[in-house]
């Protein structure tokens, strides 16, 4: 029973990170109708910003973790937003009206570039992520150990997701984003500046990925330039599972994938943990391609 509880805690904290990354995939898909494969690598860059920034910022604020954490988080979000917008302007924007396949290949290229460029810049060996979240043991019984780390990870993710919900549903730019995902041409006729909205989408998506990177590093404190590949793919699968383009769906999908993966690792075998998500992807694409919460879109000819 308590082992189950432990697994659920692990699963939810992993799932909330997947959800944060998945939101970036789903928002970009909603607005531009393409999968930003490089998103997982933006997540990796986010973690590395934390790795390099934390030791430099800590002395400035006297090593107070309650200050270092938020500052590093914010810094990483800013750096990754800049990166995301730059990638969009340099690589994706020139291809906006080209066939989908060219953007897909470009996105794969960007993703590989960040991965292997990261290996050159950061070095290929794993690095240990600095402690940013104060870790105290909250519950300590023989069967169940609960530290503050997963609690803070989950809380941060939830706060960020609520913030996103607020931005998308209640602000002007959020309304513009929704209008764009509904019909790009009509939105631009209504006087919405498409380029601004797309840049904003990349800013929001990349900063969520950066936050995901910092939280992931805090939860699993070993980071390397290829760390973004699998979380990125799984977040993508989460987005598809929830219904791509659908924001609550991405959060739900992330949670489900995180829980399933933890259960498979805990009860079956860790070697199958990467295969299970792909299995889910194939099943969902075959039987319910619009995802759990998505709506079916008919192809217009």
């Amino acid at each position: 029973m308590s082992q189950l509880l432990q697994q659920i805690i692990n699963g939810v904290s992993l799932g909330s990170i997947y959800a944060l990354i998945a939101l970036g995939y789903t928002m970009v898909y909603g607005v531009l109708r393409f999968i930003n494969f490089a998103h997982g690598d933006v997540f990796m860059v986010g973690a590395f910003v934390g790795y390099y920034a934390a030791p430099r910022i800590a002395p400035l604020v006297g090593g107070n973790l309650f200050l270092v954490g938020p500052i590093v988080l914010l810094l990483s979000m800013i750096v990754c937003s800049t990166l995301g917008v730059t990638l969009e302007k340099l690589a994706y924007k020139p291809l906006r009206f080209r066939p989908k396949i060219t953007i897909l290949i470009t996105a794969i290229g960007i993703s590989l570039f960040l991965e292997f460029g990261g290996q050159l810049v950061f070095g290929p060996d794993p690095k240990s992520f600095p402690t940013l979240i104060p870790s105290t043991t909250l519950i300590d019984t023989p069967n169940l150990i609960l530290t503050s780390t997963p609690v803070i990870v989950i809380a941060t993710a939830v706060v960020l997701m609520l913030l996103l919900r607020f931005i998308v549903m209640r602000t002007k730019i959020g309304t513009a984003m929704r209008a764009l995902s509904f019909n790009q041409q009509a939105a631009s006729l209504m006087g919405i500046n498409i380029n601004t909205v797309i840049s904003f989408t990349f800013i929001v998506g990349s900063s969520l990925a950066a936050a995901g990177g910092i939280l992931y590093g805090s939860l699993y404190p070993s980071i390397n330039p290829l760390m973004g590949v699998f979380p990125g793919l799984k977040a993508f699968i989460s987005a598809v599972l929830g219904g791509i383009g659908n924001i609550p769906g991405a959060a739900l999908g992330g949670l489900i994938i995180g829980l399933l993966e933890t259960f498979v690792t805990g009860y079956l075998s860790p070697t199958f943990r990467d295969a299970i998500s792909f299995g889910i992807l194939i099943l969902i694409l075959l039987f319910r391609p619009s995802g759990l919460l998505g709506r079916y879109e008919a192809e217009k000819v």
Partner: protein
Amino acid sequence: MMNASGKKWAFIAAIVLSFVLAQFQGEINPYFLQIIIYVGINTILASSLNLINGFTGQFSLGHAGFMSLGAYTASMITITFQATPGATSSYVMFPVALLVGGIVAAVAGVLVGIPSLRLKGDYLAITTLGLGEIIRVIIQNLDFVGGARGLVGIPKLSDFFWVFSVVAIVIFMISNMIHSTYGKGFLAVRDDEVAAQAMGINTTKYKVIAFVIGAFFAGVAGGLYAHFVSYITPSQFGFIKSIEIVVMVIVGGMGNTVGVILAAIVLTILPEALRGVAEYRMVLYSLMLVVIMISRPQGLFGTGFKRFFKKQAA
């Protein structure tokens, strides 16, 4: 373009030539021989992927998965039978092993082809990537093929003759196919699937055929590779290997057989020539993908494939 009988003679000539040249392979520096063999294997892989990605327009990222299936199947056959007297003749056992490896990969190609009937573009790409990963994880967990430790003691049967005969077969087959009814079907599926369907083309059939043939030759290439290096691990056939093959197809120009072959040759020799800067290889590859897509989506070589890359309505 060569006419049909010209192609047939060129094909026969290529086989004979590879047999003749194979007699002198002992004379060449083994390092150069290795590069030449890799050029051949990569040509097979890239041409077969070109059939799926280039001619049929189905973006597959799982070619290394098919390759690993062929490699493992063929290796298990030759390892099992090499001790059996009477079957030791490599001229009987090896082609059979390659063929079976190819067939196993082709069966997997059907399994991948079926979801491709319902998926397009990005989704298909990531599904094929996923299937490639699933194949890798399964092989890693199979103890009788060595699991993650890899399979050792594969007899070294691949040589110049076998590799370049298969190269000749692939090129002959694909170039013939492209100018046949089937070829027109592939191109129709690529150019406009809905219109093709409306014209009464069985798009399902063409997509599955493309996957089956592409996977078959990837499997054969895997078998050739395994019997050249004589030691394989599942991690050799990961995502990066698939990407390498995709890069060859894109640099050569999707749907441009000659371009793809040239790209396979150049991109196999280039990393060897640039050994000193090996760590930049993947960075270079990735930049190449982005720059080519933005500035020259039809590939570096040739001018084919224009229609597909004409501005389409979003």
